[in-house]
């Protein structure tokens, strides 16, 4: 491997002495092979650049092989922490039968993709789809290359392909004991055309996949070399700081550009507007700090338009009123729920509310723009926010006015928070009539979703459109509302609201029926003959109950809450069943401490990288928990109140619970994905645990709005 970054012991000591504060003084780490391998560069810190050398040979568009057997695999999806570079490379390598320790990765060329009739199939990274949709064609790419390499070896030795075997990139002819390495036959393989494409492996044949694999991008993220969009620098680059209309859909009325222009380093002041971007003003300067301070110093008058008095409070109030109107669209009608409810002896009713939420990507929004050259960088988090591209449209609108100078537009944290595409707020009412056995005989669901901006109906339906629990009489209808607040996909897209409603309500029913919430759910699933996944759900539910120690006697103020779902969508058949148990305590003063979170998740027949999967679950717990505890985007006077991490706080290190991830095989088909299939059940599990701990039912989020103090 040519790419190891060697350094002598002497260099090491000299450098550490020079930095003084560098703290590595006196430590010497002789490197063994494993350590050396860990330091090998497997991915460029500037991932739009290729690590491949001149003598690397391309064997199909997806990979290159070097004479020393190093394999460079191309990846079409963007890395934002989900481990996608490693997962995609693994799917190719599984079939290629190469030595994983010699695999490098790089991004595909976007230009080539379009030049060669979309040769890389799909370049978007969204909806937990990279494995689900990418696996067949990535495996095919690996298998195809392998067979070409094998054919090249067979030709070289004039033996039939069937007499050859391959392992770790070494082809063996067993009868004669001869071997050839991939690097030796790559050139020949590149010219070979296969008569037919080989079959790809089925999951039971996997060897590399299924195993936990260390992530190729990790080394770049511990020494500062991973280049994010915000880090891109090109010669002659200017920096822009931006302020868009604080009231969405407002306009710039006036501003005094001279105030900014008289400050050091300022190049120009420009307005921006256009399709699907908020209008606003940018100060362009020779550094971000010059741009930012000049922008802050420059007063701007805004025309607030017609939404200057809109507020979350008003949105909630009018939505609650809308709950009394029959739903504009009816999704499910079964039996006669109204009649059953009217005559029932026990009716449970609840209204639930969730606020707008922001994505709070750690890396503030930014666009480095240099003509139309596109740098595919690392992304400092995604969570559903990266696909809107309003930031790109805005940067283009600014750059057009700069006479061809490259510019990097950076949003402040405040701007990033106040100009998001928020998770829609939503209000719902659930009603159920319980029969003499405590089981629901009728159930109605009505949702009012502020979802009309994005993407409309499907978000409101997800998780609610087919009730997994047995209820003979059902009605589900909904209203869509539009506000001036931009909404968009937020990790799990629609379900994090709906699952909170649904799984809290089932919990309410269980308690109203005087039954254990776990066993109550089980019974409702067992009774639902129409639900094809009932058995698989019960398996996952059983796993989380067993692993979490469900049913144990807990002291006052401590409780466990359970929730389950499967991330069904209307538009596809794949699911990922996930069940969560939260164990928490509530102090008498009302402080919630989530001690432990057990997550049981169906793996289907395989996970492409169990390590990445586990980390994805941890991410969702942290994100879900912060949202439950205290996050909300509120609108007052038409604009977002929250601005920075003080008003929109992330989860802190002290608040992270002990997270136990339990992978269970409950279904036989590949799962839907893993990037957003756990988060929906964090909120209901936590709120159900609070009820178990101190008897208060939480029907609106976040928790900071509730007084949870209690007396014994």
């Amino acid at each position, binding site marked *: 491997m040519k790419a190891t970054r060697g350094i002598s012991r002497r260099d090491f000591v000299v450098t550490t002495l020079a930095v003084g504060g560098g703290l590595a003084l006196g430590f010497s780490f002789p490197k063994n092979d494993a350590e050396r391998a860990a330091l090998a560069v497997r991915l460029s810190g500037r991932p739009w650049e290729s690590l491949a050398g001149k003598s690397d040979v391309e064997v199909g568009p997806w990979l290159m092989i070097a004479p020393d057997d190093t394999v460079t695999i191309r990846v079409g999806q963007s890395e934002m*922490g989900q481990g996608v570079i490693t997962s995609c490379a693994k799917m190719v390598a599984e079939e290629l039968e190469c030595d994983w320790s010699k695999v490098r990765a790089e991004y595909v060329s976007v230009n080539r993709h379009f030049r060669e009739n979309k040769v890389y199939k799909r370049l978007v990274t969204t909806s937990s789809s990279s494995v689900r949709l990418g696996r067949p064609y990535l495996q095919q790419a690996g298998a195809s290359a392998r067979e070409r390499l094998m054919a090249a070896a067979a030709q070289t030795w004039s033996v039939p392909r069937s007499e050859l075997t391959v392992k770790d990139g070494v082809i063996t002819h067993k009868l004669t004991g001869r071997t050839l390495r991939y690097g030796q036959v790559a050139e020949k393989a590149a010219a070979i055309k296969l008569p037919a494409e080989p079959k790809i492996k089925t999951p039971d044949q996997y060897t590399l996949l299924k195993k936990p694999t260390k992530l190729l991008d990790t080394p770049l993220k511990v020494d*500062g070399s991973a280049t994010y969009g915000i880090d891109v620098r090109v010669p002659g680059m200017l920096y822009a700081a931006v302020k868009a209309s604080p009231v969405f859909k407002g306009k710039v009325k006036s501003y005094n550009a001279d105030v900014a222009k008289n400050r050091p380093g300022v190049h120009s002041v420009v307005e921006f507007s256009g399709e699907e971007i908020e209008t606003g003003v940018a100060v362009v300067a020779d*550094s971000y700090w010059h741009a930012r301070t000049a922008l802050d110093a420059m007063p701007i008058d805004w025309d607030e338009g017609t939404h200057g008095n809109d507020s979350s409070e008003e949105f909630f109030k009018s939505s609650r009123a809308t709950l009394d109107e029959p739903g504009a669209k009816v999704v499910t009608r079964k039996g006669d729920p109204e009649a059953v409810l009217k005559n029932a002896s026990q009716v449970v009713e609840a209204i639930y509310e969730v606020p707008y939420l922001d994505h709070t990507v750690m890396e503030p929004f930014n666009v480095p723009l240099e003509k139309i050259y596109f740098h595919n960088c690392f992304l400092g*988090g995604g969570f559903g926010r990266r696909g809107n591209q309003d930031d790109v449209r805005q940067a283009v609108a600014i750059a057009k006015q700069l006479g061809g100078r490259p510019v990097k537009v950076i949003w402040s944290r405040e701007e990033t928070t106040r100009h998001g595409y928020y998770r829609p707020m939503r209000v719902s009412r659930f009603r159920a009539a319980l029969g003499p056995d405590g089981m629901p005989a009728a159930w109605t669901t009505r949702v009012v979703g502020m979802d009309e901006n994005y993407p409309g109906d499907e978000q409101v339906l997800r998780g609610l459109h087919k009730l997994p629990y047995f209820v003979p009489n059902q009605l589900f209808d909904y209203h869509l509302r539009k506000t001036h607040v931009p909404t968009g996909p937020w990790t799990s897209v629609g379900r994090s609201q709906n699952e909170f409603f649904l799984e809290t309500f089932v919990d309410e029913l269980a308690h109203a029926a005087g039954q254990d919430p776990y066993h109550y759910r089980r019974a409702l699933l067992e009774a639902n003959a129409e639900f094809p996944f009932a058995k698989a759900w019960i398996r996952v539910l059983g796993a989380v109950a067993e692993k979490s120690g469900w049913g144990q006697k807990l002291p006052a103020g401590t409780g466990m809450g359970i929730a389950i779902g499967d991330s069904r969508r209307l538009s596809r058949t794949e699911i990922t069943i996930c069940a969560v148990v939260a164990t928490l305590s509530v102090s008498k003063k009302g402080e919630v401490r989530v001690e432990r979170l057990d997550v049981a998740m169906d793996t289907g027949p395989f996970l492409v990288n169990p390590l990445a999967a586990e980390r994805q679950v941890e991410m969702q717990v942290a994100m879900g928990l912060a949202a439950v505890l205290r996050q909300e985007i509120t609108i007052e006077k038409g604009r977002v109140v929250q601005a920075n991490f003080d008003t929109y706080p992330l989860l802190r*290190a002290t608040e992270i619970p002990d997270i136990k991830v339990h992978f269970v095989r409950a279904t036989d088909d590949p799962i839907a994905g893993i990037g957003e299939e756990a988060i929906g059940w964090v909120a209901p599990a936590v709120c159900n645990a609070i009820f178990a701990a101190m008897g208060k039912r939480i029907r609106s989020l976040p928790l900071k709005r509730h007084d949870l103090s209690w007396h014994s």
Partner: protein
Amino acid sequence: MLSLRVNGKAYNVDVEPETPLLWAIRDTIGLTGTKFGCGMALCGACTVHLDGKPVRSCVTRISQAAGREITTIEGLSADAQHPAQIAWREGDVPECGYCQSGQIMAAAALLAKNPHPTDADIHREITNLCRCGTYLRIRQAIHRAAELMAKP
């Protein structure tokens, strides 16, 4: 014109003395491993060392840093061999990775003054935010780094 000493090297920076160290390091000197997260010392993504002590460079003026040894993630060690960096790699700590330079700098400073930090020490001393929730892995990596440092 101020002179800043970053990772053992002197740089003349021609910006106003009240400029935050973060932007001098990133835009003027061109070391981009130190990240901008909030601009208000809330998240710690911009953590660097001043004479070995961790500071939030987004609220540290360059005038306060002149004449002192500034260390960024790029200069923490040669060849990324600081025990914290080794432990971070072993534990595959980063997800999106954006906050991790700051986390590692905070951890390295803690380990320098307290070679065997407890969980409570870590919680008290390291208040950096991580959006991806890698806190458990960070804590484990700090303990592992302490172990590596204790090795003869």
